[in-house]
């Protein structure tokens, strides 16, 4: 089996805050292979963005990695110094964000922003960077790229801005693309176009993509494998088909039935009681136990086992469905 491009092992992250220590992530492990799309699915506040930021090295200063490794292309990102991380960011690992209009610099033209990245990493002259920028704009299917090169972000729609962000992210041909809720706030037709564009680029460039989303339906369509996160813990991971046909963790099962599709009836739509536990408190082994209908005292008496459900499909639970 080929070595994965990215391998996160037992990542545990804490945040110092005035109200105490927030245990944001606990023992997160996952792997991402080249040419595939991995979905990180969870509610807002479950720690998905913290995971993304720690991989790209943009974790908030208040955050501390207390254990674990992040191995990218056989190197541990966490042991790198700032200069090495800077050289990786934008070139080998790229990221696109939510709210594209506000993620772009409002006082620089979109062409300049793409060129900035190219010049910074490939150290090309500004002339060739200009041509490369036009080419990237055309690649993400922005009409009339030569004219749009001079446009400012406020002149473009949300969908267009997201395309520009994708162009910026892909300009140095990264090996890993992290997409943090890239289509939240966009119209459904724009969402489809953007996601199809990302998928096309992933396969054509043999890139690995990590899609972070709270929308299970979106992940189902676009991801090859899905990792489900709840309150900073990975509860289940596996190939999309297997995960949907046999959701083993109670949380995954509930998420599946809570996501409406074109066939769901209102009566069948479920919800998940309670909310995420307070991450500042002392937490039990299973952070879902407060909301789980299958909970038993035995669940929290020891660290949870990692149970194999099917090929590459694992659930971290003592009483899987």
């Amino acid at each position, binding site marked *: 089996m080929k070595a994965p491009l990215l391998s996160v092992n037992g990542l545990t992250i804490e945040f110092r805050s005035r109200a105490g220590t927030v245990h944001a992530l606990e023992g997160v492990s996952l792997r991402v292979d080249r040419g595939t799309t991995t979905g990180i699915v969870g509610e807002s506040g479950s720690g998905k963005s913290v995971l993304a930021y720690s991989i790209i090295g943009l974790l908030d200063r208040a955050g501390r990695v207390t254990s674990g490794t992040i191995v990218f292309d056989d190197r541990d990102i966490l042991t790198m110094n700032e200069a090495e991380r800077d050289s990786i960011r934008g070139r080998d690992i790229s990221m696109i964000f939510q709210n594209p209009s506000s993620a772009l610099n409002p006082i620089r033209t979109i062409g300049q922003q793409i060129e900035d990245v190219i010049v910074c990493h490939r150290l090309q002259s500004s002339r060739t960077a200009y041509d490369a920028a036009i080419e990237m704009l055309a690649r993400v299917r922005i009409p009339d790229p030569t004219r749009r090169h001079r446009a400012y972000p406020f002149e473009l729609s949300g969908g267009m801005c997201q395309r520009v962000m994708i162009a910026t992210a892909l300009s140095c041909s990264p090996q890993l693309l992290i997409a943090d809720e890239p289509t939240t706030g966009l119209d459904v*037709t724009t969402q489809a176009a953007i996601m199809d564009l990302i998928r096309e680029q992933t396969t054509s460039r043999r890139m690995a993509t990590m899609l972070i989303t709270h929308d299970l339906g979106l992940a189902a369509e676009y991801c090859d494998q899905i990792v489900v996160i709840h309150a900073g813990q990975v509860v289940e991971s596996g190939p999309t088909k297997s995960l949907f046909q046999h959701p083993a963790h109670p949380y995954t099962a509930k998420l599946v039935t*809570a996501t409406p599709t*074109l066939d769901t009836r209102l009566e069948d739509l479920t919800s998940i009681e309670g909310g995420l536990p307070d991450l500042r408190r002392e937490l039990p082994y299973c952070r879902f136990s407060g909301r789980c209908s299958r909970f038993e005292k035995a669940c929290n008496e020891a660290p949870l086992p990692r149970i194999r459900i099917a090929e590459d499909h694992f659930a971290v639970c003592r009483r899987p469905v």
Partner: protein
Amino acid sequence: MTPHLEVTDLRKLYPVGAARGRSLIKRFFGPQHMLHAVDGISFSIEQGESVGLVGESGCGKSTVVRLISRLIDPTSGTILFRGHKIDDIPARRFSASPYRRDIQIVFQDPTGSLNPRYTARATIADPLRRLMRMRSRRDVNRRVSEIAEMVGLPIELLSRFPHQLSGGQRARVGIGRAIAVEPSLLILDEPTSSLDVSVQAIILHLLADLRRRLKISFLFVSHDLNVVRLLCDRIVVMYLGRIVEIGCARDVLSAPGHPYSKALVSAIPSGIQTNTTRGHLTGEARSPVDPEPNICRFFGRCPQGSDRCMREEPVLRPVNADRLVACHFASET
């Protein structure tokens, strides 16, 4: 029976080009550009019916919401509520009209629509005091507690401020505020779009339940077609200020008639069934400013298109017993 709400040829135009900033010459001699936010729509809602209004950003749904709820005045057209004309009461004075109580809105963003300095109790109590003339604190509190129970909000949360409540709890406060005065028409402006899917179902069930119990009519505005299908009897599809399709929700979503509706339905992530041929809409939408009168608004983005689309704007026409589509190709099938 008279429809609960009947909208005829409703239009809302906004002047653009910053009338203030233009030079005197331009202001008096140049043409005034108008943005056609809502450009002649007509539809109705029957008593107890739930109608979904879908379309993308810029299609005019938010403007329709504000026109029907009389927060803004229409440029032209009529709005009949229970047979009475309400479009001629100016928006500024509508708060004092007897109809104010009967039409309420559940707003989209619970965070922005709750006053940060008002507790949940004060938020729900405000319309009770203003519209139902409740004076005594005891009566008001009793009714607020009733409402809290109806929407599933624990009583102890009533003294909290919005920032101390979760997204789902804020959504309940917003719903409670809207139904407190017993309206007969409830407009829901994307009520679950900012909620996590784990909470969405609870709110949807709550809304369905309230509709049954209180016999309210709904105008459900959303961009999420799955959610609309769950709660709505009929669906109205808008594009660039016009209605392009009206029909029974289930039928429109399973067999859409207008190319735009088709694009909307095919854009929904279809789960694990990949490889659906998805026709992408090319290019960008036409400008809503001074639209050309004789071209179909969807022409250019539409996967289909003919000479007729460039010469003649399609009219909303019935294609069978309960479906209306505004497309030259639809009436031919």
